[in-house]
């Protein structure tokens, strides 16, 4: 297969791009990966995703597909003859898998984002010995409360997944698939969250962490996720740029 038949517009730190890379690797699909500069988006990206102008975009035979969960479903259907199937064949189980992927989509990114923003600003101020003006002092004093609230919300949502997992190897049972692919990229953020939030996710949600580690044993996953330390540095740098 000519790799240029399948093109992925990508950004290395994007959790949503990682989902697509995992799905392509699961199906053994060769593709051309084009790294985007998000500060200066390419004409190709703007042309292929004019509505949202965001990555990931999969381009197959010149036609664009966007939104990561939609792309993963497309990959499963377009390469349905390639093992493994990413979604169950039974309609009821399929609906369950879509529900859990949607659950992850709705809640985890927002919480992670709040988390990192809140805590990282704290960390940067301390590291840079920033002058603390009255405004910052006010923010700082409420930060403790916000911090604890954000942590509680985050763990509450992970606990829903913890309960759904039960004794199962993967979210839907014994097979790795669509719902796991939706969640597993967030694992590369856990180090940043734990460091900045001063918490142990493993202690709060041991089944979730065990499930993430199990997924990481798959080559499709371990090769698609960046080093968590690299992600942590990238996050700090991004927030550093915002606060200077």
């Amino acid at each position, binding site marked *: 297969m000519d790799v240029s038949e399948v093109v992925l517009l990508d950004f290395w730190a994007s959790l949503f791009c990682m989902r697509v890379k995992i799905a392509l690797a699961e199906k053994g699909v060769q593709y051309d990966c084009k790294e985007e500069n998000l500060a200066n988006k390419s004409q190709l990206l703007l042309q292929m995703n004019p509505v949202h102008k965001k990555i990931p975009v999969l381009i197959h035979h010149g036609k664009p597909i*966007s939104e990561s969960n*939609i792309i993963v479903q497309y990959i499963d259907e377009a390469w349905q003859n390639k093992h493994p199937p990413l979604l169950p064949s039974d309609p009821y189980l399929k609906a369950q898998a879509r529900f859990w992927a949607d659950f992850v989509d709705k809640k985890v990114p927002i919480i992670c984002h709040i988390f990192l923003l809140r805590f990282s600003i704290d960390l940067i101020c301390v590291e840079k010995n920033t002058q603390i003006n009255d405004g910052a002092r006010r923010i700082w004093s409420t930060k403790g409360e916000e911090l604890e609230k954000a942590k509680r919300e985050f763990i509450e949502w992970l606990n829903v997944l913890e309960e759904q997992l039960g004794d199962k190897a993967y979210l839907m049972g014994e097979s790795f698939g669509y719902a796991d692919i939706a969640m597993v990229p967030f694992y590369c953020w856990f180090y940043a969250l734990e460091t900045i939030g001063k918490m142990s996710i493993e202690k709060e949600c041991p089944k979730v962490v065990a499930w993430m580690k199990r997924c990481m044993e798959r080559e499709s996953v371990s090769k698609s996720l960046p080093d968590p330390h690299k992600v942590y540095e990238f996050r700090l740098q991004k927030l550093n740029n915002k606060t200077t």
Partner: protein
Amino acid sequence: MGKDDVKLLSMWASPFCMRVKVALAEKDVAYEEILESDLMGAKTELLIKSNPVHKQVPVLLHDDKPVVESTNILTYIDEVWPAKPLLPACAYGKSRARFWADYIDRKVFPAGRNVWTAKEDDQVESARKEFLDILMYLDGTLGEQDYFNGDTFGFVDILLIGLTSWFPAFEKYGGFKVEDEYPKLAAWITRSYARETVSESLTSPEKITNFVGMMRQMYGIE
């Protein structure tokens, strides 16, 4: 094959429930509707048991097995009752339908809410502009087709048509008319309402507009 037992937990004003009703009607699937009381009422035990994560309608109970989230329910209905398909056959066509479904789900109702909850003139102006920008994209994707699905009424049409029962309320409080701004989209609404499956499944816009008026008074907007 045994007879399907299909129940729908719904609420009369919910455009998300209306979508499911249209889809079941399009597929000629008989069902029992179980109405949750108004928004302010306590949620029934059946609802909490069937949708413990979100505790929201609609919930489809198929032989007592729950399926939740309206777009997910529509996909399920299309797969279980494959005659008269709602989604295109090819993978690419399906991905386009899902893209617009996602866009509609993320944008239309929240933007509409911003319109009817806006208090000051500048808030109304900004909310109206945001809503009309969203309609611009939808109008663009409809193009010269009869339906979002092409020649036949389908998945994206059903997802959007339920929300249109709230449009007159948005128009009233936003100070605009869809017909004036996007006549093709307005024609699609009329065309879709001519289908019995739609007209019999949707709550009357008048009832919705009165309901929104009541909520505005409750929230102290007017």
